[in-house]
């Protein structure tokens, strides 16, 4: 039996961050991972490879569609998919290698294999038994399968396969208009596929405000993506995906079907019952406000517990849990987890949207500012989209923000910071932003809450 202060199960962004933080705080840590490389879904088959593909395909789209208007003449533009995938793989390899080096330098013992509980403080990995005063479950999530169109790994696939198609599918149908479906749909559309997005709900990216979604949908359709909402997928056979809308039958020809309707907490083979770890009604591990499970000394973080399934949320969970285990004051503000869709334009949000705030009966004031009135955006061909700041009408405190536009993922951060400190829209408006930058649109949206935007009426 090997004894540690802490065992972390799963080396994704939640687990490895938790292990590293605990090691910084002087704990002896074991990090169990079943994949051959560290980094979990995010680094191996999720956030990172998809960003590499998005970036490469944006370059292709620029070369094909926009270079000429900038006075750049390209005699021939061709896609080399093998080289593009090789670059993506090298990006992933570099990052997972970096995590392994950090783990070594921090003296975190990486234990390869699948973990299962023997008792609350004891875990079996292969033939080995590990024990610790504290165990953190960070096993993440797996793609959800649709009963009507089960995965076959070749034609009907999840994101795991859709980041590595060997050739560009002629017709790609994406089931699910969330972040994963829209990002990978954008990638393959730019690389040459005819892409149709089939969404069950009345709108794509359903958590965003209606005005953002309308503008976002228009932008995607302009790029050639077809978007079919209110459509319930019923089956797939002989290259035809069938769906239903208000009793009407819909058919979509497809060479590949990407099912991206969500992810489920991954707790398979963990032996939770042996440790007395309970699940909630959605099969997530049940935790209290400090991420403690129903078993003493066992904690759970990231995608396996309630909350948005996002790497940065998992990381914050991991840091806080490591600090709590070490007897320190950890902190996570789960009300302020930014969410981003990395398409072009990007969409990003934090806190409450206008629609959600109004649905809660809150009295809000909204400031909007369009990138079409931002000098840098015009110079950089990024005039699509706008920034929305939602503030309490009595106190002016910022309640949320939504941004549609290039670089929205970076722009949202400053709003998160202002919100973390209880900032008002006026505070945002009275903070100097460099000129010319896209971030000036964020400031102007802050000013617009008080009807004092300088470059808008």
């Amino acid at each position, binding site marked *: 039996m090997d004894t540690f*202060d*802490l065992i972390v199960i799963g080396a994704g962004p939640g687990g490895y961050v938790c292990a590293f933080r*605990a090691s910084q*705080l*002087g*704990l002896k840590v074991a990090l169990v991972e079943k994949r051959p490389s560290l980094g979990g879904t995010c680094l191996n088959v999720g956030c990172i490879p998809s960003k590499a593909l998005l970036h490469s395909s944006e370059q292709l789209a620029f070369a094909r569609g926009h270079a000429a208007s900038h006075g750049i003449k390209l005699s021939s533009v061709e896609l080399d998919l093998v080289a593009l995938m090789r670059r993506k793989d090298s990006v992933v390899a570099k990052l997972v290698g970096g995590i392994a080096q950090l783990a070594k330098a921090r003296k975190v013992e990486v234990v390869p294999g699948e973990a299962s509980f023997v008792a609350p403080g004891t875990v079996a990995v292969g033939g080995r038994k590990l024990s610790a*005063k*504290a165990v953190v479950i960070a096993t993440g999530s797996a793609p959800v399968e649709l009963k009507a169109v089960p995965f076959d790994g070749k034609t009907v696939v999840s994101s795991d396969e859709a980041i590595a198609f060997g050739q560009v599918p002629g017709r790609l149908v994406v089931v699910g208009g969330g972040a994963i479906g829209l990002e990978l749909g954008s990638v393959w559309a730019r690389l040459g596929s005819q892409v149709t997005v089939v969404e069950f709900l009345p709108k794509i990216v359903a958590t965003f405000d209606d005005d953002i979604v309308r503008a976002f949908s228009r932008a995607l359709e302009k790029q050639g993506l077809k978007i079919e909402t209110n459509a319930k997928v019923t089956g797939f056979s002989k290259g035809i995906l069938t769906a239903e809308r208000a009793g009407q039958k819909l058919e979509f020809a497809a060479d590949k079907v990407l099912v991206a309707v969500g992810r489920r907490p991954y707790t398979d083979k963990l032996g939770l019952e042996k440790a007395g770890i309970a699940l909630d009604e959605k099969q997530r591990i049940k935790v209290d*406000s*400090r991420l*403690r499970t129903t078993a003493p*000394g066992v904690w759970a973080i990231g995608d396996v517990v309630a909350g948005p399934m996002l790497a940065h949320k998992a990381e914050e969970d991991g840091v806080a849990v490591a*600090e*709590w*285990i*070490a*007897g*320190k*004051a950890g902190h996570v503000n789960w009300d302020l987890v930014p969410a981003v869709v990395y398409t072009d334009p990007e969409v990003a949000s934090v806190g409450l949207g206008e629609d959600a705030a109004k649905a809660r009966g809150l009295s809000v004031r909204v400031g909007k500012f369009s990138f079409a009135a931002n000098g840098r955006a015009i110079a950089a061909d990024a005039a699509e989209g706008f920034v929305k700041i939602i503030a*309490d009408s*009595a*106190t*002016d*405190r910022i309640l949320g923000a939504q941004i549609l536009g290039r670089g929205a993922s970076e722009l949202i951060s400053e709003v998160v910071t202002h919100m*973390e*400190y*209880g*900032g*008002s829209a*006026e*505070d945002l408006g*009275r*903070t100097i932003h460099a000129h010319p930058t896209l971030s000036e649109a964020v400031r102007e949206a802050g000013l617009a809450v008080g009807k004092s935007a300088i470059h808008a009426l």
Partner: protein
Amino acid sequence: MPVIEVKIPPMGESITTGLLSRWHVTDGDSVGKDQPIYELETDKITSEGTAEAAGRITFKVAAGAEVKIGQVVASIDTDASPVQAGPQRSEAAPQPAAVASPAVRRIASETGIEPASVTGTGKGGRVTKGDMLAASSKAPAPSPAPAPQAAQPPAAAQPTAGARQTRRKMSPLRQRIAERLVTVQHAAALLTTFNEVDMSAVIALRAKYQDDFVKKNGIKLGFMSFFTKAVVGALKEVPSINTQIDGDTIVENHFYDIGVAVSTEKGLMVPVVRGCDRLGMADIEKAIADAAKRAREGKIKLEDLDGGVFTITNGGIFGSMLSTPIINPPQSAILGLHSITERPVAIAGQVVIRPMMYLALTYDHRLVDGREAVTFLVKVKQAIEDPARLLLGV
């Protein structure tokens, strides 16, 4: 013991009650060991109380309650604490005074409401715009009509154009200062005696030795060390100044812990420099600089303010020509320094220009006779005009 009590700790002499002005955590929160959990305002100082152990906290009193030393204000259920596996030192540092946000500064400037007097709801108790709006809506609304003339240049705490008054709530600390000052005026028989002192000798000494002094000690030679040493000498000559009343007993002190008044954002504070009879000039300068820095940063502790036998206050740094300071009870006297001004004086039948300063000594006539007070002040004057006396002890 699964549940421990959170008590207001002893704060030193003469402090029996305080105001629990703010909880840093919310009822039912999990707190870490040594995490700051409440702010306590007393008439001398604002301090923070920390959790003795990690666990779930239950409040017994609300923020704003008057509490006694030793009173139980909360309990911590340590069973609700996390697994303890690592080092115990909490990383939660005491909150430095937060910088006000731009909107808060704007409202402060327009309404005259000081952010420090408002209870903050932002991160770490920061005052948000909403807090300021709430505070200003309690105060009478400023006149809505904009001033017809061009606006005056903005100044700190300037009322809105058109408003002839602004009203804001007295901070608890200010209220205590006010109460205390009135109490002293009623309880003691205060009298002030004046003298003037020729600063030429001290100025000449400083000019001559400043460079060497700085090189050796890393701090500038100021006037305060001269006055502190002069006061120690005079206290030895006139021991009745170094006495206090305790009921019907007279307590005579045989130590020389001198308080030096420091002006800070939250009000006047008087940190005490210990054992000034045994300290060199450089030690005194360093001790004063250090205490002043900590007072301004809000890091001063109660024990730094307690137990002085005499106080020196320098109104001269604000340009005061002459004033009558109020003693710091239970002390019996306070020396007021003033601005140094070149004035014509008659010396040996000649009118000459000399850098002069007025000195004021306020004393408690219940204990100190006029003769003693005057003698004391003359001793201070002589030591400053002829610093060699400090060396020789005459």
